[in-house]
């Protein structure tokens, strides 16, 4: 009985391994992914030509750079296939004039190599999740220290130099079925609120990133993004939406974001409720 259980575990393990291996590979690419293919040419004087049958060039697939000769090519797969495509490379000898005159076959004695390629739906997906409660107050030091920056008591009793603390929100960015490193571009919006000293992962996030900031070379399945800002730096924040949006995600194969995961989206929104910018306590 114990042996049977072990055997089942092994079988399941092998199945899972095969499934993982098959995902977005050269023979089971995702729609939108680009794959490298290679053959070792013979030592003969010859030409290599790659073709795909079962689909239409530039509709179902494309040779990147319009290059379909040589030992190395790249193919971007554009359309999922109900029946497999056949990727073929033909190496044809280039006979000399003397050989042709001597009866060398006009066919060039081709050697054909083929593989079957099944293009699958794109399950590569990069999405954003909230880490903490969607609706929550901004962080505030408690109690807030009534600073006397001038050192003469002139700043006491107001909030002009008081530090209300740093509000932090985290986003969890997840990549599903990525092959190799993955990357994406993000934008962070805050509803037009004048958020002070806004930083993403410790780096100032300002208007220069309006069109987005790109993160590349991510080699883990998830990535945590930490957004911080100085609470009430403008002396009284308003309620606002802090929205983190993922765009242009790709993996190392150039696969674009398939948005295939149910219930997940490319953006995640925190509703940040302002905390009162109460002044320091004054007394007579």
């Amino acid at each position, binding site marked *: 009985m114990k042996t049977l259980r072990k055997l089942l575990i092994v079988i399941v393990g092998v199945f899972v391994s095969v499934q993982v291996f098959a995902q977005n590979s050269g*023979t089971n690419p995702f729609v939108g992914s680009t794959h490298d*293919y290679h053959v070792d040419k013979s030592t003969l004087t010859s030409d290599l030509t790659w073709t795909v049958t079962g689909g239409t060039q530039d509709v179902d697939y494309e040779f990147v750079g319009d290059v379909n000769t040589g030992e190395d090519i790249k193919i971007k797969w554009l359309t999922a296939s109900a029946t497999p495509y056949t990727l073929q490379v033909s190496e044809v000898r280039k006979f000399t004039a003397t050989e042709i005159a001597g009866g060398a076959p006009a066919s060039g004695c081709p050697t054909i190599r083929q593989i079957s390629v099944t293009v699958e739906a794109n399950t590569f997906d990069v999405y954003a999740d909230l880490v903490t409660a969607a609706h929550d107050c901004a962080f505030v030091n408690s109690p807030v220290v009534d600073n006397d920056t001038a050192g003469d008591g002139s700043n006491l009793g107001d909030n002009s130099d008081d530090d209300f603390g740093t509000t932090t929100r985290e986003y969890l960015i997840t990549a599903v079925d990525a092959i190799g490193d993955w990357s994406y571009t993000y934008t962070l919006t805050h509803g037009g609120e004048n958020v002070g000293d806004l930083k993403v992962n410790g780096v100032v996030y300002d208007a220069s990133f309006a069109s987005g900031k790109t993160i590349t070379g991510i080699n883990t399945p998830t990535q945590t993004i930490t957004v911080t800002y100085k609470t009430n730096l403008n002396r009284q924040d308003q309620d606002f939406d802090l929205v983190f949006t993922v765009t242009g995600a790709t993996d190392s194969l150039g696969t674009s974001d398939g948005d295939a995961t149910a219930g997940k989206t490319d953006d995640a929104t925190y509703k940040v409720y302002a905390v009162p910018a109460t002044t320091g306590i004054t007394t007579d």
Partner: protein
Amino acid sequence: MKRTLLRFTGLMLLLLVSYSGFSQGHNKNVGDQHVYSVTPDAGPGTNTYTWTVTGGAENDAWKVMSGSLASASVTILWLKPGSYTVEFTQDQLHGGVTCSTTQSGTVTVANNFDATIADATSICGGTTGNTNFTFVVSKTGGNADWSFHYTTSGLGAGDEISGDVNVTGTDTYNLVIPVPNVIDGTDKTFNVELSSIKDSSNNLDTDNTNDETAAVTLYGVPATGTITW
């Protein structure tokens, strides 16, 4: 007696008329069949017919194909070249006397047996097994059954291919030479030569200028690797 003489004279005239051509002799080649016949006298008595061929032994130099040597007609197959005499005798026994009439002619049989091997076309090889080259070997003249030895030249020591072929009853034979493929794209150029060509009566090939092919090439295919990704 007068009547007998008249009949005998008539028989002689009939035979002379029937075979006036053959009495001059004729030429044949080995492998030829020919019908020799007479119209015997149908007079009274017992008639006996006898064909005699001299110049070679029956079933060695010649052979009866149909009819018989004791009939009015016989078909002779000439097996070997030579000079032969074909003679027919009709013995007529009547009145206690046997009267005989003999006719003959000469046959000169020549050897025209010739086998030829045609060139093949250069072709592409494969990646495994052999690639077959077909050379058409044909013969003219001679007897129906014939044989030859063949050998390749150019495939290299230890790789040459040879053999003996017996052909029965047909003038054409497809000689298939299986050449092992080489997967590294190596070309193999060779030719085929026939020897010991003879028909079933050991008549030898009369023309040795067409017993060897031109060079033919097995072009190796590129040893392309498998597709990787």
